[in-house]
């Protein structure tokens, strides 16, 4: 394999109903940096039906080239058809790096493509860098339940591939009118060649989270006073998109079901953020949450042991602090999100 033949950084552009997924724009931002460091071009691959017009958008977000496969057969995402397009493109134009969003589609496609090429694929990357001279991609990701970070390299194969989590990279501010080169491609693929069919697409709006799998847990304790008081915890959890947790005393009082109990006789959790509100911090509780990424305690009693187990603490009345938090958070988030394209 002659590495000299492989040039350029690519991003697979995920699209649905004519809208580009935010993660793809974020990856264009990240890819731009890698491409600049290497002094190569940034490409975006667009596969779909009636998607050619999206090329303009990806140029505004940093791409130099758009590789476009615009054929009816790509109306719905299917592993086999998209994979064939991507393999075709990669074999023809030989990029050194291809990035995918770590979404269901991105991961599905990347896994299939990497096996066929074959090459190495790093999943769920949260940090990206490249060696200027060699073009070696430094893809870092959390491992073992977030306990450690690992940098993964693919030294002997090209292209190098990675899927990247949403919202960890930053999209560039779009530059209206920024132009690039559109390369239109086509593959001959008949419907009969493809072994899967999309029969129907069903949209759902409900979300639910299991507490031991949640990234954010808002846990409340006896300090909330009553089942009514505990509603505050539900409100905060809902605002943050997290799951509700509780101390044993709360569960025993019947304010929430046992499945939400954190601790020795409940579940052990390692969310990225853990709020302990009105929880004193008994050892049996602590053992169930101490490995969480970021622990925030709110308690009236400045001596409460929970503060020793927390990264940040607020001494105060939950009924005063939490409503302010909910309100401020909503404001902050709506400020952040305005400019963004629809969620994938």
């Amino acid at each position, binding site marked *: 394999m002659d590495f000299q033949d492989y040039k350029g950084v690519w991003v697979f552009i995920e699209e649905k109903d004519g809208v580009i997924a935010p993660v793809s724009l974020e990856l264009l931002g990240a890819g731009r940096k890698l491409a600049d460091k290497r002094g190569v071009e940034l490409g975006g691959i667009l596969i779909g039906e009636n998607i050619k017009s999206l090329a303009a958008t990806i140029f505004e977000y940093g791409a130099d080239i758009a590789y476009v496969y615009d054929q009816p057969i790509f109306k719905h995402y299917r592993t086999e058809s998209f994979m064939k397009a991507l393999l075709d493109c990669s074999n023809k134009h030989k990029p050194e790096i291809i990035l995918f969003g770590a979404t269901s589609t991105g991961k599905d496609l990347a896994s299939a493509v990497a096996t066929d090429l074959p090459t190495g694929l790093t*999943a769920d990357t949260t940090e990206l860098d490249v060696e200027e001279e060699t073009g070696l991609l430094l893809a870092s990701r959390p491992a073992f339940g977030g306990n450690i970070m690992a940098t993964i390299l693919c030294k002997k194969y090209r292209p190098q591939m990675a899927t990247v989590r949403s919202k960890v990279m930053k999209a560039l501010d779009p530059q209206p009118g920024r132009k690039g080169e559109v390369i239109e491609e086509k593959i001959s693929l008949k419907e009969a060649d493809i072994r899967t069919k999309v029969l129907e697409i069903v949209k759902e709006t409900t979300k639910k989270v299991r507490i031991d799998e949640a990234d954010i847990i808002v846990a409340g304790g006896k300090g909330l006073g009553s089942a009514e008081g505990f509603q505050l915890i539900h409100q905060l959890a809902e605002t943050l998109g997290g799951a509700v947790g509780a101390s044993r005393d709360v569960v025993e009082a019947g304010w929430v079901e046992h499945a939400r109990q954190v601790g020795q006789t409940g579940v052990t959790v390692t969310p990225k953020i853990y709020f302990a509100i009105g929880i004193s911090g008994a050892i049996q509780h602590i053992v169930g949450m101490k490995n969480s990424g970021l622990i925030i305690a709110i308690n009236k009693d400045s001596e409460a042991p929970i503060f020793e187990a927390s990264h*940040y603490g607020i001494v105060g009345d939950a009924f005063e602090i939490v409503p302010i938090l909910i309100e401020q958070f909503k404001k902050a988030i709506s400020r952040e999100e305005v400019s963004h394209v629809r969620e994938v």
Partner: protein
Amino acid sequence: MLHIVACIKQVPDTKIIKMNPKTNTMDRRTAPAILNPYDAHAVEEAVRIRERYGGTVSVLTMGPPPAVKAIKKCIEIGADEGYLITDRRFAGADTLATSYALTKAIDKISKIKPVDLIICGKMSIDGDTGQVGPGIARRLDIPPLTSVNKVVEIQQEKGYCVVHRKLEDGHEVIQSSMPCLLSVEKTINEVPYSPFPNMLKAARYEPHIWSVDDLEDVDIKQLGLKGSPTIVSKVWAPPKPEGGTMLEGSPQEQVEQLLSIILERKELFSVKEES
């Protein structure tokens, strides 16, 4: 009669893993080995399909000899047979080398009884990639169907099945030719409390154990560390946030400080993927 192979893995329970802060290595002693939770659902789904349509459920794992325990767990869930491929030459495999080895084992299992359906978990909690399943499918040249959260029907005679694939905002109904490979979500089923006769069977069950030499047409260069394009070059502990800081000021000010801390992790506050 269907023959379903579920690929399963034994993993350290990452929930209880502790890191040695000095060496940045895992204290494996504190992390008991368990059946990858996602794979329990894969096996359960295979068992349910067998109950609906008849057939055999085999489980397959690549791992060290103690992985027999994970196979036994699958027998408890209701699997009929278990295969362990274990060999020093498999060690250090990344997803590409893992899918290669598993494919060779599936080839051999197919010779015992042709395989109609392969089911994997969505991901392993240690490898955490979800890449092995699709990798196997590509190598066998069968359709990979990831994020499956419902098996609607299986038409063995007609050679197709219909499943739901979970999407970020709903699901799609997919028809696929068979054989094919499914990677399943946890939500696809609940793994019930195993009946006693299964427990008894599992306690006594001895799985088939194969080494590299028991498999056919194996290219040794594609196995283990040698066959793995990716390498882990560096491992470090994620920087801990400033510990034990007490926020100060008026409630309003405290909340503002808190907000700026949590919004550093803005990526978390999105429509979370359900799993």
